[in-house]
Structure formats: C-alpha cells, structure tokens
C-alpha cells in the first residue's frame, strides 16, 4: 500500500504545513454519496417549495434521511455494515443527541458503528432542512 503526499510544485513543499493532498491505493469498492437532507433524493433544481415542505421534528428529518440512504445501500447490494463514514451537518448543535438516537435505531441489529463527524453550519440548501448527512460506504472484494 502506497501512501504518498500529492504536490503540484514539490519545490515549494516546505512553505506549507500540510501537503495539498495525500494519495492512497485501494482495491476495495468505494461508494461516495452526495449529502442528503430530508427532501426526496431526486428533487428539482433549482429547488421548488413543494418538495421542501419538511417536518419540524428533527427525529423525523433524521429518519427520512436514513431511509434515503437505506434505499441507496440496498440498491447497491449493501447494508449499514458497509457504511464507513458519516459526516453530519447540523443547523443547531443542540439537536445532536436526538439525531444519534435515530441513527442508533438503524444500527440496532448489529454492533457496527461507522466513523462519524458532526459540525454545526449556518445553512443548508433546502429551506427548512436542519440536518444533512453524507455517507461513504465500502465493499471489500476479499
């Protein structure tokens, strides 16, 4: 396995406290999913109001997001055990605990938990959305 810094101008590497990138080699199959809010996976762009009518309840918004990912996973022959990373974007960090409770429901059948990070942000693209999650999943061929 090769883990290598990515430089476009190696002569100037010393100027940066970090490299512009890191490359790694992989033989696993990886699935990079776009961030999903509680609105339908397929929705019009620009967003139309009718598709962005969301329940105020954060638990229900979380459940809709995870149902979307459940469909994406199943469509690809995957399950929650294949999820390696969650990134959670919250408009109100105080809702973090309520969100984790719903996530736990989806993992109730196994002891698997993906890596996860959560941050509070100012705003999401869908009006009324209070949570966006993006997911990386993986399938090992061996």
């Amino acid at each position: 396995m090769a883990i290598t810094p990515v430089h476009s101008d190696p002569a100037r590497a010393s100027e940066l406290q970090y490299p512009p990138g890191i490359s790694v080699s992989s033989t696993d199959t990886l699935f990079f999913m776009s961030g999903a809010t509680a609105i339908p996976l397929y929705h019009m762009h620009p967003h139309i109001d009718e598709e962005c009518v969301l329940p105020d309840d954060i638990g229900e918004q979380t459940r809709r997001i995870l149902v979307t990912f459940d469909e994406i996973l199943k469509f690809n022959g995957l399950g929650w055990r294949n999820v390696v990373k969650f990134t959670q974007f919250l408009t109100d960090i105080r809702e973090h605990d309520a969100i984790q409770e719903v996530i736990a429901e989806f993992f109730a059948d196994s002891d698997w938990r993906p890596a996860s990070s959560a941050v509070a942000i100012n705003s999401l693209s869908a009006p009324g959305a209070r949570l966006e999650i993006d997911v990386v999943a993986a399938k090992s061929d061996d």
Partner: protein
Amino acid sequence: MTSIETIQLDPSKAHWLPYAPLVKVSGPTKLYFLSDIGPIPTYHRQPLSRADAVLPDDIREQARMTFQNLSDLLASHGLGWQNVVKVLEFLKDMREADAVHSVMGEFFGGTRWFPANTMVQVDNFIAPGARVQYDVIAAGPLNP
C-alpha cells in the same frame, strides 16, 4: 481496471440533479484526498500573509480562481474533473450557489461529469474575504 461510475437509482429523474447521487469507485485505484482548495494560491506562506490573500469580492471571479487551482493540482497528477468523485462545497452565502455552479459549468461542463456533492454554508474561511472553498476526493488508475 479502475472504474468510476455514477449510480442512478432512478435514471428517469437523473436530469433533475446537477450532481451524482452517488459515485462508485471499483478496481485497483489510487485515491487522492485533497486539502482545502479555494481562491488563494495552493502554495502560500503559512501563517497566511494578507498579501497572499487579496481576493476579489466577486464570487464568479473567486470561483474561477478556485477551479483553476483545482484543475492545476489535478493536472499535476494526470487527473481531471472526471476523476473527481466527491466534492464538499463550503459557501459563505448559499445565495451564491447558482453563480458558483455556473462557473463550474464553464470550467468542467465539457466533461459531462458530475461528482457526488455536499454543499453547506459556513461562517468563515482561513483566507480573509474568501467566499468559497472545496474539499475534494479524486480517484485514478493505481499505476498512472
């Protein structure tokens, strides 16, 4: 063989989305996790000097500088936009999303490639005056 493909759960609605709902990368692959890319030069003195971060206020111009920086970094490793599998897009003002995406189209529209995308609005970036920043994952052949 490295394979990078868009997966559509409902192909009849694929044209609704200006991004891929998900991108599947399979086969022996080299993955590139890039540091943040914005309108300031990729190589800059750290701590950041204000002289290196004099930015135009115009979001379209900042988007052009950002996509040029990204293109240059990708090209240095024989990669292009069609190798970008995931972008995390940070905007200072969500109302500028359409302008940023229209510049993205000018830069990369010819490739007809859409990565998976997550977009959020944040308070601030390291560079004073910056309005856009990208976090990018790319994939290419194992032995380029």
